[in-house]
Structure formats: C-alpha cells, structure tokens
C-alpha cells in the first residue's frame, strides 16, 4: 500500500538529490576555476545562497514529515539522514565559495605550483560524485568506497601541512594559498565521507562500517 508519507519522502529525496547535484557542480566550478586562475567568487556566492535556500526548504520539509506522519524505523532514519546529508551539501557549497575567496584575496597565484592542489581537487571531485550517487541509489558499496578514498586526501593534506611547516620558500603566498585550499578540499572530503556514512545508516541502521 502506498502511504501518504511516501509522497513526502519521495519529494524530500528529490529535493536533497537536486541540491546535491547543484552543490557538486559548485564544488567542481570552484576547484576548476582555482586551477585555471579564474575568479568566480561572486558567482559562487550567489550559488551558495541558492543552496542555502534549498537546504532550508529540505529541512522544513523533513520537520513537516516528522510532525505529520510520526515516521518510525527506516522512514525515520531516512529523514534524519536527509537532514544531515543536506547539511553536508550546504557545506560543500560553502567551502567552494571559500576556495574562490582564496583566489580573490591572494590575487594572481599562477607562479605557484598547483600540482598537489589539482591532484587533490580531482580526487575530491570523484568523492563528491560518488557520495551523491551512493545517496540516490542507496548503494552501500559506493559509500564504503568514499570512506576509503578519504584516507588519501587526509594524507595529502597532512603532508602539505608538514611541508609548509618546514619550508624555506620565500613565496609565502603560494604556501598559504596551497594549504588553505587543500584544507578546504580536505573538509569537503570529510563531508563527502559523512554523507557516505549517512547512506550506510539509511540502509543498514549502522552508524559506521
């Protein structure tokens, strides 16, 4: 039997998925534009505001579903997770904006070595993509993959940080910007991991694997 609640759950899922796609694109834009040295801060600001609105709408809908239908078991887990996943997407867009802000504040960083940032960026793009796919398809294996991928980002971030602490390079701008952007990328990766954890929680009820 189709329940009245199912319509709401479907809508919540679509809303969060839509939000995920949009925030993923925002992350891609930020990472790509940083690599190409293109200042998109104003554009990304608008985007992050839009995502903020989507997040408000999704959480309002989630609260409405709880108030209306008193969900239990998997329904309840799904709604709770949607709220958390929505928040993750909101953070994606926020860090994307932060990345673009680094470019704006530091101005021209073309002389710097961006190899490491670009490598981490490509990696985190993949993580973001997979985490959204895992949510839409409720795929526990994809979710596990995201968690595995996170270790590489953590390692890259830590190494860059160590390198920076010992550096003698006098182009301080390059170092700070690299560390900052990697820091944001690391945060995005963390949130992608949380999203993956939530997917696991929806499907199995387990907090972590």
């Amino acid at each position: 039997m189709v329940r009245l609640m199912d319509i709401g759950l479907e809508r919540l899922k679509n809303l969060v998925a839509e939000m995920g796609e949009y925030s993923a694109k925002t992350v891609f834009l930020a990472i790509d534009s940083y690599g190409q040295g293109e200042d998109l801060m104003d554009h990304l600001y608008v985007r992050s505001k839009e995502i903020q609105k989507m997040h408000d709408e999704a959480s309002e809908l989630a609260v409405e579903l709880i108030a209306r239908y008193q969900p239990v078991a998997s329904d309840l887990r799904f709604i709770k997770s949607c709220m958390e996943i929505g928040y993750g997407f909101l953070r994606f867009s926020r860090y994307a904006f932060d990345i673009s802000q680094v470019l704006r504040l530091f101005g021209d960083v073309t002389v710097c070595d961006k190899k490491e940032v670009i490598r981490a960026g490509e990696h985190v793009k993949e993580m973001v993509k997979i985490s959204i796919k895992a949510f839409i398809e409720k795929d526990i294996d994809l979710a596990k993959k995201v968690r595995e991928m996170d270790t590489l980002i953590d390692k890259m971030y830590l190494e860059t940080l160590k390198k920076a602490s010992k550096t003698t390079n006098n182009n301080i701008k390059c170092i700070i910007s690299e560390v900052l952007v990697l820091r944001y990328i690391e945060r995005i990766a963390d949130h992608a991991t949380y999203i993956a954890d939530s997917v696991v929680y929806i499907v199995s009820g387990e907090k972590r694997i």
Partner: protein
Amino acid sequence: MIGMNKELLSVSSKERVNQTYKIETENLNAWFGTKQALKDINIKIRANSITAIIGPSGCGKSTLIRCLNRMHELVPSAKVSGKVFLDGVDIYSKNVDPVIVRRRVGMVFQKPNPFPTMSIYDNVAAGLKLNGIRDRKRLDEIVRKSLEQAWLWDEVKDDLDKPGASLSGGQQQRLCIARALAVEPEVLLLDEPTSALDPIAASKIEQLIVSLKRDYTIVIVTHNMQQAARVSDYTAFLYLGRLIEYDVTAKIFSNPREELTENYIAGRFG
C-alpha cells in the same frame, strides 16, 4: 496511487497557497439551550483544500461544522447567530433554503450510517431519488461515478443489489461518502469519519479524503491529531468554543503560535 494529489505536502513551500475562500464565518455563535458551544468564530476556509478542526472533546468541533450546512438547527433548542458565507452568500439569511445549502455542503458522520432498508445502489442514489430524479440512465451513471470516487466501485460493482449494511465498517463509511458525493456537493464535511473504524480501514479513508481534495473543499473534524497532521492543509484548533489558532498544518504541528495549541498537540492536556 489513484488521484493522489502531489500538493498534499508543504503549504510551507513556495508553490501554492490557494487564496480563494469557499466558506467564511463571521462572528459565528452557537448554543444548545443556554449553553454556548461556539464563541465568535471567524474562520476562512480555502477552496479545494483540506481543513482539519481539532480540539479536546466538547470544544465545539462538531458544532462548528454542523453550522456550516445548517444541521445544527435540527437539534431542538439549538440556536445560531452570526454569518456563514458560502461563496459569498450568507447561508443564514432569510431567503436561503437550508435544504439547498445541505445539497451543496455534504456531510459524512462519525458512525457509518447507510440506510438499512436500502441496497448499495439505492443508498448511493437516495439523495437523488428522494429529490425526484427518476431517470435510470442518469442514476446509473451517477451511482457508478460516486462509487468510483469513493474507491468502492471495484469492491461492490457485482453486488449493487445487496444491502448497504452487509458491507464491512470501512466499506460502509466509503458508501456513505459515495452517497454524499452523489448529490454533487461542493463542500464535504466529515465529522470524525474514521473514529469507528480499524486502523487499516481508517488509513484507506484518509487517503481517499486526500484524493477528493481536487474536486471538493473538505473540512474534517477529528479528535485524532495525527490524522489532522497527515491529511490536512490547514488546521484549526478549537478550545472551549473559541478558535484559538488557525494556520497551515505544518506550521501548527511544528511551530504553533499559541501556547495552548502547543500544549494540546504535545499531549499535555486534553
């Protein structure tokens, strides 16, 4: 799901908010003898929406909807003052025939009450037949349409001659809904329509009610807050004959304005 309306949820979200009012009351007061059951009710009910009326027992919920189709005055010693506008016309003005009002504003009661001496077919056709419509073809058509709208057609199409009272409780209530729909009303008043039914039958009726919203304006009285939360777009909270709060359902159940409302829906009294 058949006819399920996607608009059920979220009056909170941007789409929608239907502003056409089907029914408006103005300082509506009602009495039983000397006991005042309703005090200065002002409520505007939107067309093609489901409005739930909740409140503790004896708060005047049923009286309120009975004032909307002039059923209240059938009780000896009952009295009404104030105005009730149906499409802008006061149904309590002198030149309005209450019988015509009741044809436009149908009602379904707490306990399923099919006419015991009539077949399923005759139950549905009763409102038309007893108002002088005899054209068999037209009756057949309306009976079928009404039973379909009430999600009962498939279950009874081969037993139209069987007595209405032979159906199960949930089916009987859907038969009563079909009977009310057959006279082609614009508004449907439901007075605790599921309180005498088991949960499964009740849930079916709830879904049915939601599906009817497209064609009718629905007002449902319920002492089951969860039911109000599930099916309605707007919720009115009545307490001791007064309208305490009236708002979008999601708002009432997540962020009520009045403390009294909060205390009631949170189960702190009532």
